[in-house]
């Protein structure tokens, strides 16, 4: 064995030695259960009986041909995701620009925007449920504004906006941090150079800053996209999918299929489909955004 080969081998050993424990842990806690649930998705199983009956592709057939409720839930999930990706990212970016400037209260404000993010979404859901019902009623009595008497959680036309607002309010702080961090990496000299060349503030933002913080945008959009598609806790505590099934997301639908109706096999089939959808959308999104990133 030549010294070079020996060196390569020992490097490979070290590499394997360090990655193996993590690999085993992920295998046991993520990959194997995932494969098991893929298997369950081909069975009829209520989650309780000791035997699972293998039924081949029946679950997938039913899911694609004969489950209007799930596709409705899927439609709502897409609408909610689209809304929250756009609103969250634009608001967070604007606020980040504002809070990155020399505002006096910027530290207090940064903390204030971040606080909702550290509270559990379940609790946030209950808090807002109270605000929408009892809180708004008191506001109405004080101000007399008709706005407060709308049934924000009970009216099918309004409830989308209530859910959107609460989830944006909750997650804003996280994206704000990502964007502020991104903004701080933008080299001052580039901005100054643009200033000297006579670029306006708006021009500087769109032509210099924005291309340079593209990595932050990629991360944030990716994150808000997959969070939106997986939305569960805020819906669970705020509306519980109601009124009717008008705010049922696909994750809530899966939960109910598996745990409320006791159709585990069918529920896992749905979650396999959800997994594939998230995978495809995320790959597509990351690829598209990566192309726009620039090096300094």
């Amino acid at each position: 064995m030549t010294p070079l080969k020996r060196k390569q081998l020992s490097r490979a050993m070290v590499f394997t030695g360090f990655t193996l424990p993590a690999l085993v842990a992920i295998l046991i806690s993520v990959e194997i259960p995932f494969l098991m649930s893929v298997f369950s998705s081909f069975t009829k199983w209520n989650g309780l009986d000791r035997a699972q009956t293998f039924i081949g592709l029946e679950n997938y057939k039913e899911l694609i041909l004969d489950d209007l409720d799930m596709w409705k839930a899927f439609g709502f999930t897409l609408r909610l995701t689209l809304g929250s990706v756009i609103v969250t990212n634009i608001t967070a970016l604007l606020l980040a620009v504002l809070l990155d400037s020399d505002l006096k209260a910027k530290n207090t404000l940064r903390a204030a925007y971040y606080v909702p993010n550290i509270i559990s979404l379940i609790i946030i859901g209950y808090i807002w449920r109270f605000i929408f019902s009892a809180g708004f009623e008191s506001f109405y009595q004080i101000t007399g504004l008709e706005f407060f008497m709308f049934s924000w959680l009970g009216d099918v036309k309004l409830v989308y906006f209530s859910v959107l607002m609460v989830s944006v309010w909750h997650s804003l702080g996280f994206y704000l941090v990502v964007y502020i961090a991104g903004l701080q990496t933008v080299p001052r000299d580039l901005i100054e150079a643009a200033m000297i060349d006579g670029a306006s503030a708006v021009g500087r933002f769109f032509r210099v800053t924005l291309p340079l913080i593209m990595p932050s945008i990629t991360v944030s959009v990716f994150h808000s996209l997959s969070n939106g598609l997986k939305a569960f806790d805020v819906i669970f505590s705020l509306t519980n999918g109601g009124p009717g099934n008008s705010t049922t997301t696909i994750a809530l639908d899966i939960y109910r299929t598996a745990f409320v109706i006791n159709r585990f096999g069918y529920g896992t089939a749905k979650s396999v489909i959800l997994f594939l959808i998230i995978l495809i959308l995320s790959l597509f999104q990351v690829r598209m955004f990566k192309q726009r990133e620039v090096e300094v």
Partner: protein
Amino acid sequence: MKKLLFTLLVLLLAFSPLTAAGQEEKAGPPTLNVLFYSPELAEQYNDMVAAYKAETGVTLDITVLQTDYRSVLTSRLNSGDVPDIFMSSAYADNSTYKDYVYDLTDEAFIQELEPSALQGVTVDGRVLGYPFLVQSHSFIYNKQVFEENGITTLPRTLDEFEAVAKKLQANGVQPFATGFKEFWVLPQTAWQAIANVPVENYGGYENFVSMLNTGKLKFKDIPEMSQVFDLLDLIGEYGGPKPNESDFNDQTSALATGKVAMIHQGNWAEDSIRKTNPEVELGFLVGPTGNNAETAGLMFDSNQTIRIAKDGENLEESLAWLEWLTTSEYGRNWIPGQVKQLSPIKGAAAPDSQIAESTTAMLGEGVPGYPWFYQMFPTGTEQQLGAILQGYCAGLTDRAETLDALDAAYTKIAKAAF
């Protein structure tokens, strides 16, 4: 410094087997692992646990959950972490948990229970669960509010309910708090409006449900379903400005403070109502079945069921606990005295509860008491049908669409369950 650390570590090492051994010795009487729901009864559960420990030395390690009870139970059964004692509904749940529950038929203490309470837990003559308590649901009204508004004749039909609601509304009192946000309140309200129909037209509840299960009968072919929609419309119309946002807490607090006059709820709501206003005087109203005053009744059944795990390590001790609950002085008095609901045990004392009192009095006068037949529907229908009815109340679907949706959802669940 190093020496000190070393000595400490050695000491720690030396004592750890000792403490471990100590723990082992202490494990005399077993600890029973219990999973219950109804967190409103947490105090009463704890009191019972303390009393049982004082008498027998056996500890009940009790976990109390509510909304995600079913999911937690399912995953625990699934993962092999089976509780020695757990709760479920009656009827359809008899088959849901069939692989896990102990057959209580031959236990002597079962003879001490009212036969009517055993209906919901008996399958082919075998008793698969222990009826925890007897409950009733219908409209609860605030007596003071009725009195102040000069309502002396209690309503029995849909038209009479509407007249009362109109009168209250005219006097500036909100007639109902709907509870429409809770998916379980809607089916309870709805099915009561046709509670007489299965016996009158479909040869009894079991036959009615099996016709639904096999698809021989559809909801849209039941003409009396219009009674359900009429009642929901009425409650919604007179249910304040935001009828679709009212939940259990809203119902109980609004009734307690006299903000509303009536709610559709069960006797389990009384404790919360009286905690908000101890002076409140409550009564039960019959639930209207269309405009026939004769068939308007109460929904009266034993649904909450205690199950014993058959493969548990502590099977003997779990059975001993049930026997104690049925025959001991404390056990017999626990449900009427502390839980303050009707006990399924023969000759048990009457509870200090206005609703329970009202129930007993009304049934004594010949008001029909209907079983909770919707619990015979396959597991999961409660939530699914509840959501569909909620959609109707929110104006998402009209009557015909709602009926179609109910049929579609029911057919799917029934197909998966059998």
